[in-house]
């Protein structure tokens, strides 16, 4: 099955993101579900639609090629094979639950003077993001800022474009 209408493709990707948000909710990750629903299903779809209104709504017909299909199949098979080596969902002995997670859940953060104090934040996700991994989140915010600056530099209409010949 092939879909050449890019409008329908944009809508399908939005629906897929919304389903992804529901999976995240089923996995007890409401923070991620929020983000996926708002960014993936909402803002990304809007940006895709605006892009379609600037370009075209139909994909150009392309020749069917075998090599990309083989690459995709091989990568997909390798990824699915790799999931067999993962621990079961919710396994308490999984490495992710053994290393730093117990410290985070115990709600203790070391201070500069060497003693240990509670962070006292009920939502452990917020505590991990903002306090235990504050450097990471600072970096992420810088990445978002840089991405915004890059998009503005690339797409901004220059003053000479205003009212001039296209």
């Amino acid at each position, binding site marked *: 099955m092939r879909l050449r209408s890019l409008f329908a493709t944009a809508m399908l990707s939005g629906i897929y993101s919304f389903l992804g948000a529901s999976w995240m909710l089923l996995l007890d990750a409401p923070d991620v579900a929020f983000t996926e629903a708002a960014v993936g299903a909402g803002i990304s779809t809007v940006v895709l639609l605006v892009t379609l209104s*600037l370009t075209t709504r139909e994909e150009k017909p392309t020749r069917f090629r075998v090599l990309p299909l083989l690459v995709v199949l091989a990568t997909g098979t390798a990824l699915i094979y790799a999931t067999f080596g993962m621990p079961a969902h919710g396994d308490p002995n999984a490495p992710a639950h053994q290393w730093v997670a117990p410290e985070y859940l115990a709600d203790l953060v070391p201070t500069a003077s060497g003693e240990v104090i509670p962070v006292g934040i009920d939502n452990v996700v917020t505590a991990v993001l903002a306090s235990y991994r504050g450097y990471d989140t*600072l970096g992420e915010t810088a990445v*978002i800022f840089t*991405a915004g600056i890059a998009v*503005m530099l690339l797409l901004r209409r220059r003053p000479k474009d205003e009212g001039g010949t296209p």
Partner: protein
Amino acid sequence: MKHPSILRVVSKLLIPYILLFAFYVQFHGDYGPGGGFQAGVIFAAALILYALVFGLEPALRVAPLAVIEKLAALGLLIYAGVGIVAMLKGGNFLDYSALEQHETQGQHHGIMIVEAGVGITVASVLIAIFYSFAGRRRGR
């Protein structure tokens, strides 16, 4: 569009609640799901909905691009500034415990200010990206 007034009335009713929900997610992030990133995204979605329904010009009057650009940088500066203040108060960079006498209180306030910085940057960047896309016309 055949009946734009339906869309206008419904989105006028919805937008205040979306903005309120964004602030709830922002400031209740310590206790419930959410935080700066999610709140910023929801806030941006409200403004983008406004721009979609009422047009880009009214949205630019509400939130001019010059203000949005400065807010994007301000949020990041607030985040880094909390780290610097923690250093000035004798702690490590981003060590919120050093912010106040009571260390857990310092963690609370540090996290709240940092999340506000994240929210401001995320909301402004998403709005600015939407403005950049929507401000262009075909063939330019």
